């Protein structure tokens, strides 16, 4: 649907977006995920043809978008964008939703019925005659979505659509996005800094850090096989251990980390410097004299709890076994095991739960 090649943007001497290559497939929900200021908005604005790239091309459905202003306008009219901070014009809710159709010179009677349909989808039909500037943040965002929707775009761009909203409204907008996708099969490109939101909504993700797309893949790939430490930290992997491969028999490798030895599944040859990525929720904790199902949990490390930080219904527990390891245990099991700082425990990790990457640094 959209093929992006070598696309970059500089403002003055500052590089906002490094040259990127990306392909968006028709009908998918693609999430651009990254910390604030990483270039998500810049990328979406380039895709919506609002700004000109410094280098590179965007090919939309087989047409090079750089051809002429007329081509850019006609392609822009096949897309719609919802901005992070919705701006409404000083007119009624229905008047706001009608703009895209007015610009396309759609017949009055059709504008009326399509505005109604769009307001119905976002659940704001009862507010159609209200002054748009008097709406709440969540309502304004829904007006912005209806305004984008009404033109029946082939591609819908959403820039952090829930960044300024409370959890109830966030949930509402997310459900709305999924409903729109289901009903119209619109290709949706959404940016967010919320990993979990990306997971809830997206088919595929692109991780963007410091103006660079560092990894594109399925949610599973990015959560469990991040390609570098920056992505790993961003997707919530707290434990990154440096080690060296000791032996490898048909992919079953033993890796030394300090004095400890981990059993993992990896193709790397003995002698390779590697980094082990361990998600905190993959680490189980057992009491020193308790018993673990020894068959499946190959890695068992004895260490002392050095820190316990509450994290919603979980407790982030740091265990010192030489290097440090972070485990996410539920508050309930922390209470049942009466875990406390200074206690000696056994941390268990399955061999398959450890993601191994060559260690560059």
């Amino acid at each position, binding site marked *: 649907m959209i093929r992006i090649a070598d696309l970059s943007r500089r403002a003055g001497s500052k590089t906002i977006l490094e040259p990127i290559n990306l392909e968006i497939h028709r009908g998918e929900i693609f999430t651009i995920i990254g910390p604030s200021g990483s270039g998500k908005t810049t990328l979406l*604005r380039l895709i*919506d043809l*609002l700004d000109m790239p410094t280098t590179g091309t965007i090919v939309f459905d087989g047409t090079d978008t750089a051809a002429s202003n007329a081509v850019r*306008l006609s392609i*822009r*009219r096949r*897309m*719609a*964008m919802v*901005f992070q*901070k*919705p*701006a409404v*014009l*000083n007119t009624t809710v229905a008047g706001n939703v009608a*703009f*895209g159709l007015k*610009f*396309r010179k759609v017949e009055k009677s059709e504008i009326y019925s399509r505005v109604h349909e769009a307001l119905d989808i976002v659940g704001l039909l009862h507010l159609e005659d209200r002054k748009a500037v008097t709406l709440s943040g969540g309502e304004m965002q829904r007006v*912005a979505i209806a*305004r*984008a929707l009404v*033109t029946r775009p082939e591609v819908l761009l959403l820039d952090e659509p829930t960044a300024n909203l409370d959890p109830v409204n966030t949930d509402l907008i997310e459900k709305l996005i999924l409903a729109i996708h289901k009903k119209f099969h619109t290709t949706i490109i959404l940016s967010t800094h919320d990993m979990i939101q990306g997971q809830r909504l997206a088919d595929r993700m692109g991780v963007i850090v410091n103006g660079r797309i560092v990894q594109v893949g399925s949610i599973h790939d990015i959560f469990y096989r991040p390609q570098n430490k920056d992505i790993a930290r961003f997707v919530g992997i707290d434990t990154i251990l440096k080690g060296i491969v000791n032996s490898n028999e048909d992919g079953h490798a033993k890796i030394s980390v300090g004095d400890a030895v981990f059993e993992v599944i990896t193709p790397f040859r003995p002698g390779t410097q590697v980094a082990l990525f361990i998600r905190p929720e993959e680490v189980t904790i057992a009491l020193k004299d308790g018993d673990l199902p020894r068959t499946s949990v190959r890695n068992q490390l004895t260490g002392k709890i050095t820190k316990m930080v509450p994290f919603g219904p979980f407790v982030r527990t740091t265990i010192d076994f030489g290097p440090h390891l972070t485990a996410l245990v539920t508050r309930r099991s922390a209470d049942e095991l009466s875990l406390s700082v200074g206690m000696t425990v056994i941390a268990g990790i399955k061999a398959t739960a450890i993601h191994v990457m060559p260690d560059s640094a």
Partner: protein
Amino acid sequence: MSEIVSGFFQAINLIVTLNPEVMQIAALSLFISLAATIFAAVISIPLGGLIYFHEFRGKRVLIVLIQTLYSVPTVVVGLILYLFLSRDGPLGIFGLLFTPEGMILGQTLLIIPIMTGLVIAALGGVDRNISDTLISLGATGFQAIIHIVREARLAILSAVVLGFGRAISEVGVAMMIGGNIRGATRVLTTAIALQTGIGDFPFSIALGMILLLIALVVVIILNLITSGLSFESQVALGGPRT
């Protein structure tokens, strides 16, 4: 003191009895300044838009220059225009000196900078996201400009009203270009200056009260307009200082 009090009551009498000369002067003042306001608005709104929507070298300098001209002394505009319109001047053949038309021209030139500057400020007061939103909804450049101007309509209207206020209250251009000719080019401000000079205080006070009344109406209109404006636009127009 008694002179002020008796002058005040005589002035009231002049107004209430609709003294023909007082009414003629007030009507001419309104006519000239309204005409100047309309001409200036027709020039300033597109000019302000042109400057706001285009990026060019020296844009900031131009805006500073326009803002400087907000406070150009009326007598300086009067002097320059006098030199142009006098019989030997470059525009002397049009015979505009000492005519209401000449005064309209002078007041128009006087208020174009403040109106243009405030139109630019009014357009700048429109949320930048609005223009992005319009473009992304598929507006052509022209459609986007029309809607941004429409979004700024109240602030632009305030700019026009403020321009009228400066026109009706100025003396320099009216005196130097109009010449304060009784029954022809005598307006409120010039009449007050003259009548005070010759000691006809009741007449001056009456005209002064009419002028204040007009100012009051202008302020009321402005308040009605700006109460419908966003806070940012109000500040841009010198509005509420919190």
